[in-house]
């Protein structure tokens, strides 16, 4: 150490000591720095979601400085000639201006939109990982619940965000949102009028939506993320079974310095990909869509992917409402409120349902290989098949037009498949998983050692100080990821890519 380095180190040390004498955190800091992260690529999806959220905050603050949440009518006279002399709201004008006149504005806006899609996509893939590996089991039921709530709030946040733009596409979505709110039995009409500030299109709806989008929901999401992370850290991460990994230990990388550096690297890489998408993949070019007008609509209107499945359900629903004497349970209530409500109810209840069915109420810190739980894996695969079908139904008008097919025929096929495809996929998955599990049974280390056994964490710690020694350290190497988990990961990644591409294609419109 040079004298200069030593001086700097001692200055830092003094500052650390000064702080610690006032907060008393030395023990906490040490155990945090020693925290071990198990290594597996599928554990990164949650982190990708977290980092996408950070990008959303950064780009969102920039956008909020230029957006005007006002329905006041103005006549456009900005830099984009095709819209000259078009009457529009101040909100839409501000979006066109920040996209086309503010330096780097379009980059920030498109990056923000892509980050929102990736945020929810990563949450979904992360949820699949947790589901298929059984990571939701005791003691992590609360993580599952906070995570699901994050997804629900995230979906609402995304909808609020793209509805702010007040272009023709988002305005149509808001109109459908009103019809859905209105359909709720007994209170729907009141609810819709309270949320919108009056009968559709309401009074000052955009400024409400703005407050919800930039303050209320982000605050809830940030709080839930903090709770979610605390709940992850308390029992420490789950890990895949492998030599040396058992229920009472964690094997992997220490937070300091290896994992912190790696994870920071992941943050910058996620940001890089989002910025690249924001610059090169056009998304939601609202200046082409034109301003919203309650009397206008265009064909090829698609919601973002996290809402597209509800749009698909709305389309597949047969044309009936339920009449109860003088009252009506509206058609759109069933696919857009009841159906998603049931799906999320089952998801929230899943850890408890599974514990009840299997009778397994033990703590689990070792993950399942999906193949070793064929029934759970089959149910998950069936659900994903249903989701994919609804996403297809949500965008079928585009390819029906493209290929000149009959919408009636396509829709009828989808209606049948909605009931047939999930069970078929489920059964096939069950068989494949069971066969795989039998062909390649899990090799365990036998019973985990007693907690009191001398496990030598000290040796590992000392080894960690010296990378060369560390490589031949006594501690075991984690098992390479299993074939099945690689398949699940690859399918999930491919699915996310297809969704992203489909979203771009789906939002291309043929004009109204």
């Amino acid at each position, binding site marked *: 150490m040079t004298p200069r380095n030593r001086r700097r180190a001692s200055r830092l040390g003094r500052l650390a000591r000064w702080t610690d004498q006032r907060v008393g955190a030395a023990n906490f800091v040490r155990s945090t720095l020693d925290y071990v992260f198990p290594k597996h690529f599928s554990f990164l999806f949650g982190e990708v979601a977290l980092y996408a959220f950070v990008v959303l905050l950064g780009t969102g603050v920039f956008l909020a400085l230029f957006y005007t949440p006002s329905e006041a009518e103005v006549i456009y006279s900005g830099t984009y000639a095709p819209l000259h002399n078009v009457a529009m709201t101040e909100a839409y004008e501000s979006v066109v201006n920040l996209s086309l006149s503010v330096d780097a504005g379009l980059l920030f806006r498109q990056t923000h939109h892509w980050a929102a899609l990736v945020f929810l996509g990563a949450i979904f893939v992360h949820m699949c990982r947790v589901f298929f590996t059984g990571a939701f089991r005791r003691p992590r039921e609360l993580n599952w619940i906070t995570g699901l709530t994050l997804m629900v709030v995230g979906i609402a946040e995304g909808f609020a965000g793209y509805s702010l733009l007040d272009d023709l596409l988002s305005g149509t979505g808001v109109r459908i949102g009103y019809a859905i709110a209105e359909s709720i039995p007994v209170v729907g009409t009141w609810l819709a009028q309270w949320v919108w500030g009056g009968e559709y299109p309401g009074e000052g709806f955009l400024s409400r939506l703005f407050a919800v989008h930039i303050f209320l929901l982000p605050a809830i999401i940030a709080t839930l993320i903090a709770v979610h992370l605390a709940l992850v850290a308390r029992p420490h991460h789950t890990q895949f079974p492998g030599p040396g990994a058992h229920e009472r230990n964690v094997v992997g990388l220490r937070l300091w310095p290896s994992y912190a550096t790696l994870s920071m690297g992941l943050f910058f890489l996620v940001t890089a990909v989002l910025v690249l998408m924001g610059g090169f993949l056009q998304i939601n070019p609202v200046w082409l869509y034109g301003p919203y007008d309650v009397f206008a609509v265009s064909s090829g209107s698609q919601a973002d992917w996290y809402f597209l499945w509800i749009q698909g359900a*709305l389309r597949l629903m047969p044309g009936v409402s339920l009449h109860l004497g003088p009252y009506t349970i509206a058609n759109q209530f069933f696919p857009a409120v009841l159906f998603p409500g049931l799906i999320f109810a089952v998801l929230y209840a899943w850890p408890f349902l599974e514990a009840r069915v299997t009778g397994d109420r033990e703590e689990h810190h070792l993950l399942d290989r999906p193949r070793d739980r064929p029934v759970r894996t089959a149910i998950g695969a069936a659900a994903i098949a249903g989701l994919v079908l609804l996403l297809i139904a949500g965008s079928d008008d585009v390819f029906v037009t493209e290929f000149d097919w009959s919408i009636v025929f396509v829709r009828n096929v989808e209606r049948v498949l909605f009931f047939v495809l999930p069970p078929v996929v489920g059964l096939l998955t069950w068989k494949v998983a069971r066969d795989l599990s039998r062909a390649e049974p899990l090799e365990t280390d036998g019973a985990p050692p007693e907690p009191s056994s001398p496990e030598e964490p000290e040796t590992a710690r000392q080894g*960690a100080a010296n990378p060369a020694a560390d490589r031949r350290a006594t501690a075991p190497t984690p098992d390479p990821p299993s074939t099945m988990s690689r398949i699940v990961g690859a399918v999930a990644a491919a699915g996310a890519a297809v969704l992203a591409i489909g979203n771009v294609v789906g939002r291309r419109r043929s004009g109204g």
Partner: protein
Amino acid sequence: MGEQRGGAGLVAVAFVISVIASVAFLIGYQTNGGTQWLSLSMATAFGALGTGLALWSRRLMPTGPAEEPRPVLVPPEEEEREAAQTFQEGRRAIQRRGLLGGLLASALGALGLGALWPAQSLGPAPRTSVRTTGWRDGVHLVDERGRRVGVDALDFGSVLTVFPEGREPTADDQVILLRIPPENLALPADRSDWTPQGYIAYSKVCTHAGCPVGLYQDVGLLLLCPCHQATFDVAQGARPVYGPAPRGLPQLPLQLLGGQLVAGGDFSGPVGPDRWRVGEAKQ
């Protein structure tokens, strides 16, 4: 050691690339370099930084595997009992003043109710306007610019969006006006005089989810909603023939008045999507 130096070299290269890319971003911004340039340079700056950090971690830092014991979540019975006991002692102290506890609950409840009451400011209570529109007997049909619609406004097979004259049109007022050869119409008997010279008008608000029913297909005389493809048969009173709409589009009776089109009354049914009390008689 050689491997480590190689790693360090790569990391250094990555960080240098990041610095260069950041400078390129600044130059691009100053010279109005365009979205793609800004994106590429910024993504390179972030990407190189991320790559450098990942390499640093993977190549030059301890790769473990490290191991640590997992904390035990279920406390020893004794601790659990002590926690419960501490809580119970406090609870007994509160319960000695049962009346006060009850009053406190009432006060908090009343306060909560009082604080929630202003939620009514959010919007008006649903009024009769939910069930009514701007259309009355004798109201002129006008186009987007407020011009009255004459009897020669449309050729057979064409459409126009119209509004009631003399008021700011609301979302529920929009009407799609079509002209169809009268011999092609097959309306219910009580609507036979609603279509002078083949002019026929329906509410443009879809009875499914409220989108404007904007697509007209002259072959087959179908009106189609672009949102969820609810399809209505224009000739048969806009009866739903396919898709999720639970009922037809309400029809607006038309009459001729001095060569111009006027409404012959309000719509034939409730406008817009179904809701809890959609079946209520109109006032």
